[in-house]
């Protein structure tokens, strides 16, 4: 997984990263995010903890890498999915629909996904910004 190699290169702390899922195993997950308010709250909390340092170009410049790791769980009901396939608007991939409808099992299906959004510390135009360190 590319995320693992990225972190292992940048941080040297591979021990903290679960090899099977790529999760940072000792990092707390936000409880279920139900609304934009929940999202803004955790972003605000995280922002307060981030380290900033001044560079010549920017008074408050983030000098660290930040990763937002989103865990998505989808629980799919087969009966509803079949109805959705017949009447619903298209927009879901055939693979997703097929994974549910091609299986004769009537059990609900769970799909787990992860999305990594990574903000790399600015190293652009180092001569001008006079940024140093990592």
């Amino acid at each position, binding site marked *: 997984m590319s995320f693992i190699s990225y*972190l292992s290169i*940048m*941080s*040297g*702390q591979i021990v*903290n990263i679960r090899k099977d899922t790529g*999760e*940072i195993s*000792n*990092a*707390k*997950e*936000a*409880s*279920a*995010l139900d*609304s*934009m308010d929940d*999202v803004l709250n*955790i*972003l605000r*909390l*995280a922002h307060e*903890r*981030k*380290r900033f340092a001044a560079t010549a170009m920017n008074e408050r410049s983030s*000098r*660290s*890498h*930040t*990763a*937002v*790791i*989103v*865990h*998505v*769980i*989808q*629980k*799919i*009901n087969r*009966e*509803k*999915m079949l*109805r*959705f396939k017949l009447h*619903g608007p298209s*927009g879901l991939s055939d693979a997703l629909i097929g994974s549910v409808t091609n299986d004769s099992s009537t059990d609900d299906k769970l799909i787990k996904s992860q*999305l990594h*959004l990574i903000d790399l510390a600015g190293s652009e135009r180092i001569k001008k910004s006079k940024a140093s*360190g*990592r």
Partner: protein
Amino acid sequence: MFASPIQSTTSGIVIRTFQELIAARDFLGRNGINMSFTAQLVEIYEEAVTDLLTGIQ
């Protein structure tokens, strides 16, 4: 696909992502797919990993 009207033109990619996710969850929820999500926020600074939700390094 699910862009929200409250999104500003200066919204960053994290905000946009969550707005899409919430809109997608609501759309899928009406169609038999129950979607939920959680997030981890992590900072890497000087070779150390910090959990931004707890402050623990």
